[in-house]
């Protein structure tokens, strides 16, 4: 007996649905066509599924009320077409902001490493070496403090913008 015919019923259905939809590959179509000729179970299932397929295909679309178009047209007289998103989201600005923050991060790292004194000691244990790093030296600098302050302010502005957009969307949906 063909191995394909002994596969679980669910797999048979799935393959038959693909065959009926026409989404099965050419090879698969050939295999299934052969199975339909040889295997009674496949043939029976095929006719069962085909009937459902044809029944669902035969259903008609539902129609809304006669006033539907009129109602929509009345509603849109109170609306304005919003400008396309791409016109007010300028990709150059997004890229510019991205480069700005990357440049800030890189300059901060360069500055940080510039302030560090590298010395080769006999102690190679990384955790012990990290303990020796004087973190307060980085954060006591006025420039770093100013950078952190600006980031916090930008973060708060973005958070405020995010919440006000959500509020606006929620009101529109209401």
């Amino acid at each position: 007996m063909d191995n394909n015919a002994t596969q679980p019923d669910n797999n048979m259905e799935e393959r038959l649905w693909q065959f009926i939809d026409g989404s099965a590959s050419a090879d698969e179509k050939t295999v299934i066509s052969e199975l339909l000729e040889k295997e009674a179970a496949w043939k029976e299932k095929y006719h069962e599924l085909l009937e459902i397929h044809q029944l669902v295909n035969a259903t008609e679309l539902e129609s809304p009320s006669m006033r539907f178009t009129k109602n929509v047209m009345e509603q849109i007289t109170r609306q304005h077409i919003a400008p396309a998103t791409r016109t007010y989201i300028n990709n150059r600005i997004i890229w510019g902001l991205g480069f700005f923050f990357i440049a800030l991060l890189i300059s901060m790292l360069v500055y940080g490493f510039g302030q560090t004194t590298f010395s080769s000691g006999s102690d190679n244990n990384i955790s012990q070496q990290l303990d020796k790093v004087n973190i307060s030296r980085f954060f006591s600098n006025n420039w770093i403090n100013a950078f952190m302050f600006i980031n916090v302010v930008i973060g708060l502005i973005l958070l405020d913008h995010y919440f006000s957009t959500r509020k606006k969307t929620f009101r529109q949906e209401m």
Partner: protein
Amino acid sequence: MSTGLNDTEIINQVLRGNHQAYAVLVDRYQAYVFTLCLRIVKTREDAEEVAQDVFVKAYRYLADFKGASKFTTWLYTIVNNTCISFLRKKKLDIRSLDDENVFASADSQVSDMQANQVEQKSRVQMVNNAIALLSPDDAQVITLFYKAEQSLEEMAQVLGIETNAVKVRLHRARTRLKEKMERNFATELKDLN
């Protein structure tokens, strides 16, 4: 008149200020949108409200339609989002495909339908009734595939999932539809054979 024009040409007319041309698009797709909404929100009143909302939203954001996909694919994405928002607002469950409760609650609707079965013996009505018993997810995927003329790739775009996931959903939805038909409309199915 705009009736002989294709969707993109009509959209361009609307964007140029001929707002009345939008009525052609509404006329053209109202049955598709309404049927999809009805399959998801289940009652005609709600479906009519949601379908109108869909067309108003589509009008408002018409400038965002880039023409990269079919207008219907873009429109059905709005249908999908609007229906989900509507169901959330109505505090109805947007049930997952694997939730067995969906069948239990859907089956409770059968008794009401059986009362009308004598008058609803036509094939179409039987299938519509069976689809009405499905969860919104299943009913939506079946309607998109059979009635909304959407390919699996377009359905994936509308539903925001992968094409393979659409195939799985469609297969499960059809299996459940078959079960519903066999369980609730066995006599009618026998009569058809």
